[in-house]
């Protein structure tokens, strides 16, 4: 009897393993097919001119220079805006704020904000930054909008990373006469930094892919110049790709594929850098 049920448990175990495996394989398979499709269409289109050219009515002469520059400047300003606020807010809420009902409410709200559709942020940005603050459809309006969008992600992951710091370390620090600020900055924050970096990776990856809120605030589809300051108009790579895919000519689809390859590489690169920093950090604080 025992033996029978043991064999059964083993069978179930194995069956589950194969089912799980096949689902994983399916997901990966779809991804691979997509990648092969994109690469076979677009890879030949990637050359120096593709990076250097302005957008154009002629697919073959079209390039991503302004879109790329716009996207990178946009990311730069977004990070500058959202990172300090998000990290400080996370530290405050977790380490300094009182743990009462209001705090609980704020916590739930922030988590909810992380799940709000990005178009909503676009509408908020349009009203607040573009219209009320009269920033127009500028780079800075876009960065503020995206900053708001990724703020909850940064706050939530910062809080989680800080919560994971064992109290025994805080006690050790306080026990030596350290102030709250010294304890937070010299013990808690460094310990949590690995986790905070993970949050930043997630946030930046999300910001890179966003198109909808930028379209809502009026990011242009055709920008024949590189933004030179935060008040300039801009476009981004995902918008450029989106624009190309709406064209009927096949040559533009090739451009779109090539653009997607560049976007993917940038995402991988950014993630890679962040993971590298994180691993190095963990090595430093562990072994």
């Amino acid at each position: 009897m025992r033996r029978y049920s043991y064999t059964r448990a083993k069978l179930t175990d194995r069956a589950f393993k194969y089912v799980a495996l096949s689902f994983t394989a399916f997901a990966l398979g779809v991804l691979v097919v997509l990648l092969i499709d994109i690469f076979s269409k677009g890879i030949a289109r990637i050359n120096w001119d593709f990076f250097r050219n302005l957008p154009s009515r002629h697919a073959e002469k079209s390039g991503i220079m302004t879109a790329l520059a716009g996207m990178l400047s946009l990311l730069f300003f977004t990070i500058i805006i959202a990172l300090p606020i998000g990290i400080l807010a996370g530290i405050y809420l977790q380490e300094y704020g009182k743990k009462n009902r209001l705090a609980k409410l704020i916590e739930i709200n922030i988590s909810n904000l992380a799940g709000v559709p990005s178009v909503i942020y676009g509408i908020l940005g349009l009203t607040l930054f573009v219209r009320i603050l009269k920033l127009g459809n500028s780079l800075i309006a876009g960065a503020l909008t995206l900053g708001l969008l990724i703020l909850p992600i940064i706050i939530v992951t910062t809080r989680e990373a800080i919560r994971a710091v064992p109290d025994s370390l805080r006690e050790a620090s306080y026990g030596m006469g350290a102030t709250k600020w010294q304890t937070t900055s010299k013990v808690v924050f460094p310990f949590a930094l690995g986790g905070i970096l993970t949050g930043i990776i997630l946030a930046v990856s999300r910001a890179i892919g966003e198109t909808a809120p930028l379209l809502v605030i009026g990011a242009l589809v055709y920008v024949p110049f590189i933004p030179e300051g935060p008040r300039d108009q801009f476009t981004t790579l995902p918008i450029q790709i989106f624009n190309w895919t709406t064209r009927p000519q096949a040559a533009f689809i090739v451009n779109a594929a090539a653009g997607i390859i560049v976007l993917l590489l940038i995402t991988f690169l950014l993630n890679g850098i962040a993971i590298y920093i994180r691993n190095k950090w963990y090595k430093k604080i562990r072994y």
Partner: protein
Amino acid sequence: MFKLETRNANLWYGEKQALKNISIGIEPNSVTSFIGPSGCGKSTLLRCFNRMNDLIENTKIKGEFLLDNTDIYDMDVYELRKKVGMVFQKPNPFPKSIFENVAYGLRIVGGKDRNEIKDKVELSLKNAALWDEVNGILNKPALSLSGGQQQRLCIARTLAIEPTVVLMDEPASALDPISTSKIEDLIYELKQKFTIVIVTHNMQQAARISNKTAFFYLGELIEFDNTDKMFTNPQNERTQNYVTGRFG
């Protein structure tokens, strides 16, 4: 004159009273053991001496707590904690290098001079009987040390801020017998320079290392006397039962 003293000390965690009218005086340059069954308030009293209980919400205290005859609530809490160092039950080194662990206390008081810090780190590690084992690997992570070494590192870290009192809450309970005996030898050495209060569940340990022993029961101080007397001829029946292992 006492180094540490409480007069009619009471402490409540919310509604629950953890210390009841405790009056105890601890002599300088001695080792005092706190013993008693789990939950009787040993750690709580220990944490009163460096005001670590201030960090716990909803605690209320009454009575007097004195360090060198000064009310510790009239002192700056950060200054107090530099004078009254603490070693915890579980080794809790920072995830930093061995050197930085010991230098931490020096850095938070604004120590900048590199040579001075280096000298003090070395001295503290020697005082904690760890120098010979870590000399040459000071830049390695503290967490790569063994549990016993980590605990001595925590002691060195505390000694570096030059306290006059060292509070130890079951400092050897997570360690093997060899590491434990190293810590005991160390405590014996340290009492030349420091006043030491140690919480322990190990009767032999209390008997071996301490000059005086205090027995607590349900938040009350039942008996406090010379260690010899506590273990051979206690006045209170409860103490007698506890030290002979009849309850606990």
